[in-house]
């Protein structure tokens, strides 16, 4: 193998590469969805796959999400590993019954006899100026569904590593791709891709001593930015990137919060009934006596995703995160 210089790639490219490599390694991997073939997907994430592997391996399906996921279930029953693309977050909803009542439950229903190794890729979240239904953060629905893994990469390397892991997993994985990070770039050697990441391990993206920001997906870069800005205020913030909501890495998260004594959960999804409640509750259960302040949450408002011209008011940004950090009862320290 020739050595190739490390060069910048986008998250979209890393995802494409992950599918490509998985398809090359394993003939049972099939990509399917709306416009994934000839067009290469509306975000071009499946670009080139139909050409390289043929239309039977990367298939433009009829336009019906329940049908796509439902036929993927049957394909998985016969030993294939379908990778399904839902064109946008809100367009996964028609497939909800198949996801909840079958994909999540088939292994359990059959006492392990019929696992469904299906990856459901969902471009998700806002910040791209999309019109209605193109910016939903739907992870709360998936988190609340036992039997699914729920993964969201925040870096180019993780996009590759976690998607490989998702496809290799014998369990169904809802793979949430932060739309607005599709074009984020990172130095990453496509010829020597990271080893596959095990699903379920959070990572400390930035170490700090004052408080922990717990986050994932599109909010990770925002939190890192906030952590930089916080230095001015004298706060040294730790940033934990969960990488997967299910399984949840209690260990890494609790260890961080025990160290810092304060935490803010940050996500784009609506606050009420969103992932933050679960995260705050379980951190509190585990770290109560280490906490100097209640775990706070910075989330999207409890409103339908707003139109593009107003989305900046909705999305958790650096200021809102710093405000929350400021409310972590610092006076208690002195």
């Amino acid at each position, binding site marked *: 193998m020739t050595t190739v210089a490390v060069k910048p790639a986008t998250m979209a490219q890393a995802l494409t590469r992950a599918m490509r490599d998985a398809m090359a390694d394993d003939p049972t991997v*099939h990509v399917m969805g709306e416009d994934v073939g000839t067009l290469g997907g509306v975000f071009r994430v499946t670009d080139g796959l139909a050409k390289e592997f043929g239309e*039977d391996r990367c298939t433009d*399906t*009829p336009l*019906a999400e*329940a*049908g796509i*996921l*439902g*036929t*993927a*279930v*049957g*394909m*998985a*029953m*016969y*030993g*294939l590993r*379908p990778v399904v693309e839902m064109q946008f977050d809100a367009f996964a909803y*028609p497939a909800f*019954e*198949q996801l909840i*009542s*079958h994909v999540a*439950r*088939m*292994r*359990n*229903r*059959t*006492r*392990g*006899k*019929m*696992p469904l190794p299906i990856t459901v890729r969902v471009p998700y979240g806002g910040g791209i100026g999309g019109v209605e239904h193109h910016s939903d953060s739907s992870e709360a629905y998936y988190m609340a569904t*036992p*039997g699914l*893994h729920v993964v969201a990469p925040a870096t180019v390397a993780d996009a590759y590593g976690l998607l490989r892991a998702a496809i290799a*997993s*014998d*369990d169904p994985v809802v793979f949430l791709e932060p739309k607005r990070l599709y074009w984020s770039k990172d130095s990453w050697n496509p010829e020597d891709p990271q080893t596959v990441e095990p699903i*379920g391990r959070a990572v400390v993206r930035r170490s700090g001593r004052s408080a922990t920001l717990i986050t994932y997906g599109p909010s990770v870069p925002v939190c890192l930015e906030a952590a930089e800005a916080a230095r001015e205020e004298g706060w040294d913030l730790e940033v934990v990137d969960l990488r997967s909501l*299910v*399984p*949840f*890495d*209690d*260990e890494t998260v609790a260890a961080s919060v025990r160290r810092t004594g304060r935490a803010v959960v940050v996500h784009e999804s609506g606050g009420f009934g969103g992932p933050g409640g679960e995260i705050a509750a379980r951190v509190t259960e585990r770290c109560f006596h280490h906490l100097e302040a209640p775990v706070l949450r910075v989330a999207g408002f409890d409103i339908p995703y707003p139109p593009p011209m107003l989305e900046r008011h909705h999305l958790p940004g650096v200021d809102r995160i710093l405000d929350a950090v400021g409310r972590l009862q610092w006076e208690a320290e002195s």
Partner: protein
Amino acid sequence: MTVMEQRGAYRPSPPPAWQPRMDPAPLLPDAEPYRVLGTEAAAKADPGLLRRLYAGLVRGRRYNAQATALTKQGRLAVYPSSTGQEACEIAAALALEERDWLFPSYRDTLAAVARGVDPVAALTLLRGDWHTGYDPHEHRVAPLCTPLATQLPHAVGLAHAARLKGDDVVALAMVGDGGTSEGDFHEALNFAAVWQAPVVFLVQNNGFAISVPLAKQTAAPSLAHKAVGYGMPGRLVDGNDAAAVHEVLSDAVRHARAGGGPTLIEAITYRIDAHTNADDATRYRGDSEVDTWRGHDPIALLEHELTERGLLDEAGKQAARDAAEAMAADLRERMNQDPALDPMDLFTHVYAEPTPQLREQRDQLQAELDAESEGPHR
């Protein structure tokens, strides 16, 4: 410059065609359901097949009766009987090769059993023991499916996958008249036709979805007429005529196996019992309707044919009944034993590997159970 000049010369021709011109006539079902028994076609029917069907029907009816009895004895939580529909159930199973797959709905226990699934294992779901009692791969029978029509895309996907692999496997998917109204029915048939997947859809039209009669379910000339809208053939068959159902299904299976694509079959039938033991059918249908259908009983139809042709005598009937009784006795006996369930199994198969969270919960339940078995209840 006029718009015309901009856009090119005027052509008073039809628009370019999107679809190749296709004559819908061959896709349309006949006006009358196809019948064999009591018609001239019966003479051509294979005696061995008719006898196998007969044995299956008698056994199937006995199974339905026994299962219903078990609900009364509290040994079965619920049972959706297919009494009156045995011809569809048994013919569906017999029309398939061993390598084929069956996708049953909750009402199709008989078809599963006729495929080889252990009669007790087939009742596991309805007994409340576990969600599926058998290994789907063993007899190539998917789990009995409760959410209506959701099994249909599974059948399409499996058939498609088999075809991609080069295996000549056919999938047969069963659904009720009510289930045809669900979006999944539509999507499944469309995918099947577009992919030319080797799948056969069998709609058992028993005239009711629980209490809702067909007239509130569809305004179509027949459910089989839906086929043309997907570009597949639709067939209408007398669902109480086991020989006819078997023939139509076998044709469709052969057609699918040969690469001809999917078929939609509507079998006209009737459920003699209530929707389940928990249902009160007198609320929505009269005795006279039930009586009319008792007069078109699938077993009686077949028995008459066999008797007329000298293929069945009293001893043959007795043999079928004895076999059915033996099955029922075995079912009764085994169902009277309490299944041994392990509560820890709740956590075993949620994922290939339990998450840390599930491991904690497992330990919690284990501790509770240990405490329970040690000391008296709080």
